[in-house]
């Protein structure tokens, strides 16, 4: 209930018109252009075509890619189109707009032609908008629409026939699954929306459009399922978006950072994904997805820590094995955060914890090493970070070589030279592998960063230092919220009912309720009972 109340206050803040520049500044392309203000402007707007084209020429001064094309349409009316070369479908422009406008069968007078065009909509296109505002026309030309100006009428027609060069839908590269759909989002937002719409064929899937970036005018879509997603959450998302004032939006992280609850946290407070099925799943749980144009990574909010430990694969595999894999993941999460620190703490402060034989082995390998354990661990971890970063950034052909050299130098040569101990190499490589097991890359990154302070604490205070590090991290996580949802949700605060998708991956016939926390409107999912065995079915 508290979250709800919190939303309410946020909502009341939203009600203040001064706080909501989205609509006033950016406007919506789907909105009816014949708004009162628009018409008022139309009175002052020049009717002469030459004047308007002159205005646009002034605006597009030194823009060589803008095309102005004048032609004579039916009934001898002078028309012209303005568009930007390369971002529209010129074929459609020729066939369905210019050619069609030339051949409209109207009476002799120009007025009749104009009426046919504007009221009769006698052009063979699937969508057109009418505006009288020059600035609106300017904005829409930049979005890739074609502006048709007719001499003698203040109104202008916009044809959304944009066509950009874009990548075809391809396999997901970062979030790979073995079973399950392979397609991933691309840079084009309308293609991405199609991918989602193909999965959620419901009128309840709502998409609201906004534009961000003074110069980029990036299209941003807020998508949610009406009736599942709580209205307060959508309002909160809109409210946070309304705070954004930015020059350009070049990727979804620009938006992500602007809507975070705690801007100083290393942990991701919204999730990104390149998989349409993950977005669809999140929407079905009552979350909101934010699509950003020109990026294949879409944002999901709100998220919890445990959501980022779930991979899409879990839901496509057998639930028993998926549960096991999930446990392995939790184990390696701890390992990736703590193993080097544990090694440092145990070898430096608590060697009595190890069994005698193991102790002898470890001590033997550490015997020739000239550094204390903490320095050794730091050296190795830092160089491993370097290798990892290099292999990601290097051109692919060289990447192989880097990893081979790195492995050789660190794995063999350093041990043989007695700079580091063999045990440390094992620790570092297990840690490295462990950090790749975490499904969400950003979360792995946060843990990678946190590993170093905890290592220092372990070097100074042993296990007590590790505990301190864990406590501080935990305190931070506990205080973190993602759009009002506590970050560690099913564990702290405890919601036992949600453990079905956190501690285990329950079979679908047990997932009766959506995760509680988002105050979803319909808590119960459509579900079927446990599948009956054939003999049970026969008897009943």
């Amino acid at each position: 209930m508290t979250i709800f109340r919190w939303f309410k206050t946020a909502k009341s803040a939203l009600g203040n018109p001064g706080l909501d520049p989205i609509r006033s500044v950016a406007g919506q392309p789907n909105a009816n252009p014949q708004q009162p203000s628009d018409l008022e402007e139309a009175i002052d707007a020049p009717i002469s075509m030459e004047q308007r084209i002159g205005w646009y020429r002034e605006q597009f001064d030194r823009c060589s890619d803008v095309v102005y094309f004048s032609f004579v349409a039916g009934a001898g009316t002078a028309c012209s189109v303005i568009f930007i070369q390369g971002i529209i479908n010129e074929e459609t422009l020729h066939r369905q707009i210019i050619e069609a406008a030339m051949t409209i069968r109207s009476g002799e007078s120009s007025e009749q032609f104009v009426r046919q065009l504007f009221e009769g909509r006698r052009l063979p296109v699937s969508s057109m908008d009418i505006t009288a505002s020059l600035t609106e026309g300017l904005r829409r030309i930049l979005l890739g629409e074609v502006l048709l100006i007719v001499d003698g009428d203040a109104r202008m027609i916009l044809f959304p026939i944009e066509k950009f060069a874009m990548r075809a839908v391809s396999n997901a590269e970062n979030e790979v699954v073995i079973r399950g759909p392979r397609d991933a989002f691309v840079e084009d937002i309308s293609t991405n929306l199609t991918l989602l719409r193909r999965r959620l064929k419901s009128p309840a899937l709502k998409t609201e459009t906004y534009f961000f970036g003074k110069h980029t005018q990036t299209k941003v879509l807020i998508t949610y399922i009406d009736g599942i997603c709580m209205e307060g959450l959508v309002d909160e998302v809109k409210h946070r978006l309304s705070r954004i004032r930015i020059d350009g939006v070049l990727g979804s992280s620009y938006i992500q950072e602007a809507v975070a609850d705690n801007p100083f946290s290393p942990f991701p407070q919204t999730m990104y994904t390149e998989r349409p099925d993950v977005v669809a799943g999140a929407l079905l749980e009552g979350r909101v997805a934010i699509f950003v144009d020109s990026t294949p990574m879409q944002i999901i909010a709100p998220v919890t820590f445990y959501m980022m430990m779930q991979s899409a694969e879990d839901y496509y595999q057998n639930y028993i094995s998926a549960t096991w894999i999930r446990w392995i993941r939790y184990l390696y999460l701890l390992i990736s955060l703590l193993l080097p620190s544990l090694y440092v703490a145990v070898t430096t402060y608590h060697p009595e914890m190890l069994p005698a034989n193991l102790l002898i082995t470890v001590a033997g390998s550490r015997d020739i090493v000239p550094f204390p354990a903490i320095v050794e661990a730091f050296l190795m971890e830092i160089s491993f970070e370097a290798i990892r970063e290099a292999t990601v950034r290097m051109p692919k052909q060289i990447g192989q070589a880097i990893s081979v050299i790195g492995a050789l130098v660190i794995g063999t040569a350093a041990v043989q030279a007695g700079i580091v101990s063999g045990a440390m190499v094992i620790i570092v490589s297990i840690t490295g592998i462990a950090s790749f097991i975490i499904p969400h890359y950003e979360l792995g990154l946060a843990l990678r960063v946190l590993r170093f302070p905890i290592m220092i604490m372990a070097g100074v205070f042993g296990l007590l230092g590790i505990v301190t590090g864990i406590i501080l991290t935990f305190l931070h996580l506990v205080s973190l919220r993602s759009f009002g949802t506590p970050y560690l949700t099913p564990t702290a605060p405890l919601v036992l009912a949600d453990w079905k998708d956190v501690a285990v991956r329950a079979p679908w016939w047990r997932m009766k309720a959506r995760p509680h926390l988002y105050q979803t409107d319909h808590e119960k999912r459509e579900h079927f009972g446990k599948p009956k065995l054939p003999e049970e079915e026969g008897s009943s």
Partner: protein
Amino acid sequence: MERIPHSQLIMLLIIFEFTATISFVLGPLAAVSNYDAWIALIAAGMIGWGFAWISYKLAMRRPQQFFVQYGSQIIGRWLHIPLSLLLVFYFLHSASIILREFGDFMVTEYYQQTPIWAVAAVIGLCVACAVRIGFEGIFRCAQGFFFIILGSIFIVPFFINKEMNFAMMSALVKHRELPEILRGAYLASPMYGGIFVILVFFPWIKNGKKTMRSLGLATAVAIFCVLIHLVPAMMIFSPKLVGDLTYPDLELMRYISVGDFLENLDPILVASWSSGIFLTISLYLFCAVFSLSQLLKMPDYKPLSFSVTAIVVTLSITMARSSNELTLYMKHAGMLFAYICQFAIPLLYLTVDTIRGKFQKTKYPAK
């Protein structure tokens, strides 16, 4: 402000009640009440619960208000302010005593080279952050650590049962000495009576009427947690030795060896247990900071957290010159001070309020 559900309250109070008891009271308890220590422990738990009951009754008189704010209506401003300050000091002092005991423990057992202020400062940093984050943070933290701490407590008796001398059982059952029980209960009940801190933040508890039941459950679980360490310790070491050991529970943990592979698990267990100590200290400190801010009529308690934590850390280091001095203090003054704050002060308020209620029936309708 988010109200805390009872599950969180129970979890934090369980941790709050048993972590300090299990490590610092076991020895003195066994020393004074020998074989009756376990009865004394149960009695102490009951007494502590009784103390909490008084505070609960007092809090229920005005369930929507904070004690520090309405206290002056009961006994007048000039008595209320010093008494509240005394309570604040009690919270600070309890926090620093536990911090000191913890520091002593760490320094003597694990970090002989490390000065005690370093240990105290590290824990102090955590505590200050916890108090800074606030009330919800402490409770959620307790919820997160609860299963780990409880697991590490429950694991111990399973791995040491082959060391136990079960013949000792008969002495545990048959031996009865009333004075010994009373003395033991006197020693241990302030540890359980600590739950009277609910008085400070009572309006934040969701559905306050059920509080007594939650407190009872928490106390019962906490008693059980201590018993499963106390009884094995008695059976392995005998009460005399338990009484003489400084940290009997640590010695108990050192008996663990899991299948010849992990020899000494005690650092791990101590690590998980120390997070319980951290929670205990932060609850005390939170109460102190919160009451102080209300007493000074500040809008927010958070800015006080760091400065008060600094005071607690210095107090814990300087309060006694040696751990012996601390033990002596606990024996002669600590317990009495605790009784006054946990029992006498709430009782005073309750009595005055009842008497006043009798005289002015119209003003406070009887519940």
